[in-house]
């Protein structure tokens, strides 16, 4: 069957299988060396998965948010770092697709991004504002038809490997900290100087050190929609939904390992004459996995319905209820995922504690710990606490 005759679903499933096989082959080395997962990212590009969220009219796969979630739920089990890189890139695509297609330059870029399967990194962090993406110190200097930006980013995931960047900045040098825009520029238009080292407990392949960035770009690449609206309508919900999907895939893998080990132990017990075999811990983590899944699916379905009518329904995203729900999704998914993987390790015992066994959970545990601190849940708890005071 020719590729263009295959349905989107067939394309995704075929591509996913190939990508997962590549991930399995290289994930250990990526983690050990803390290196960028070149092979997995290449496989994603070869199988058109990098352009998953780009609409078909621009040459992408035309995936919906729900499709992205299904992909995310599969990718993470073999290489969480690669899966996170993919997810973070889809978030950038969502910002461009939702807010950039009234702009001919952005549309042209999307066509190129689909054809070449470009990888886009996010430059929202900044030295001096911590993890608060709603403020910027660096502003855009407009010079005729061009903009110039110099920004000290504390973290740019896969910053050294991106084909392009989406950066937040003050609208102008004189604008207030919260008057932010989002601008797209390609790596050929930027100087990206690494300022720190990424040597971490987990997610080692996301390669997210700090960078000083200087870029010069046509001002046509500054998105019209204020960043604070892009954040509410796209960046925050898609981020939380896709991160949760990847964390879910790590958790599911852990539960399945625990399930297999439990079966083996029960068989041994039966041989020894022990008939009453129960494992409450397994039930507990399976319940938690189900909770995670249900929460992700509910938030995804709600957001998908809004995204299908973004200009009309998006005011719902500004509601207290929606903000709290989206914050909850990140907080609770991360907490449940960590609990699940920890307990799965406990259930499996030594075979999971050892590396290089079929039940190893060391890397899973290290990777999933990132979910609590990137971004730090404390920030979300504080925000939700304030929002809850406003909610009657």
């Amino acid at each position: 069957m020719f590729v263009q005759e295959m349905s989107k679903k067939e394309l995704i499933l075929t591509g996913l299988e190939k990508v997962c096989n590549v991930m399995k082959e290289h994930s250990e080395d990526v983690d050990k060396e803390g290196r960028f997962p070149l092979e997995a990212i290449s496989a994603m590009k070869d199988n058109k998965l990098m352009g998953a969220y780009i609409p078909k009219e621009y040459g992408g796969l035309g995936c919906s948010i729900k499709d992205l979630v299904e992909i995310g739920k599969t990718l993470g089990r073999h290489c969480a770092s690669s899966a996170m890189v993919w997810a973070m890139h889809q978030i950038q695509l969502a910002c461009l697709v939702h807010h950039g297609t009234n702009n001919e330059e952005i549309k042209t870029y999307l066509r190129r991004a689909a054809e070449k399967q470009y990888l886009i990194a996010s430059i929202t962090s900044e030295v001096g504002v911590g993890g608060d993406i709603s403020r910027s110190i660096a502003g855009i200097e407009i010079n005729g038809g061009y903009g110039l930006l110099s920004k000290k980013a504390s973290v740019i995931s896969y910053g050294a490997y991106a084909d392009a960047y989406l950066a937040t900045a003050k609208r102008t040098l004189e604008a207030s900290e919260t008057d932010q825009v989002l601008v797209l520029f390609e790596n050929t238009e930027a100087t990206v100087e690494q300022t720190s080292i990424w040597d971490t407990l987990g997610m080692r392949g996301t390669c997210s050190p700090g960078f000083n960035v200087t870029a010069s770009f046509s001002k046509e690449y500054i998105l019209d929609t204020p960043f604070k609206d892009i954040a509410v309508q796209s960046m925050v919900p898609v981020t939380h939904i896709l991160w949760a999907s990847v964390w879910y895939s790590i958790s599911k893998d852990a539960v399945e390992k625990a399930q297999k080990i439990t079966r083996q132990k029960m068989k041994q017990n039966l041989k020894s004459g022990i008939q009453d075999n129960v494992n409450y811990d397994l039930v507990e983590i399976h319940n938690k996995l189900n909770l995670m899944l249900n929460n992700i699916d509910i938030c995804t379905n709600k957001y998908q319905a809004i995204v299908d009518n973004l200009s009309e329904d998006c005011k719902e995203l500004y509601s207290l209820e929606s903000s709290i729900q989206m914050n909850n999704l990140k907080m609770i998914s991360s907490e449940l995922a960590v609990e699940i993987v920890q307990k799965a390790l406990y259930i499996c015992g030594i075979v999971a504690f050892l590396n290089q066994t079929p039940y190893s959970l060391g890397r899973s545990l290290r990777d999933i710990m990132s979910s609590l601190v990137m971004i730090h849940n404390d920030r979300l708890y504080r925000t939700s606490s304030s929002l809850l005071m406003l909610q009657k």
Partner: protein
Amino acid sequence: MEDKIKEVLKQHGKLIKEVCHLNHEDNLYELGLSSHSSVNVMLALETEFDMEFPDEVLSKKMFSSIKNLKSAVSVALER
């Protein structure tokens, strides 16, 4: 194969009827097989025949009679 299946049922099925008196089509659930004991039967069969039941044969119906158990074990052994 049938003897091994019956031996497993004897050890783990907790049936109210003697296994040697069972017919192929007797409904095992009506003879005392519970969800819990059916799991033990399944695990013991996997150990006995050194195989794993494929997902598609695992169902309540699989355990409902010796005939169905034989069929499921055959499918598993072919894999």
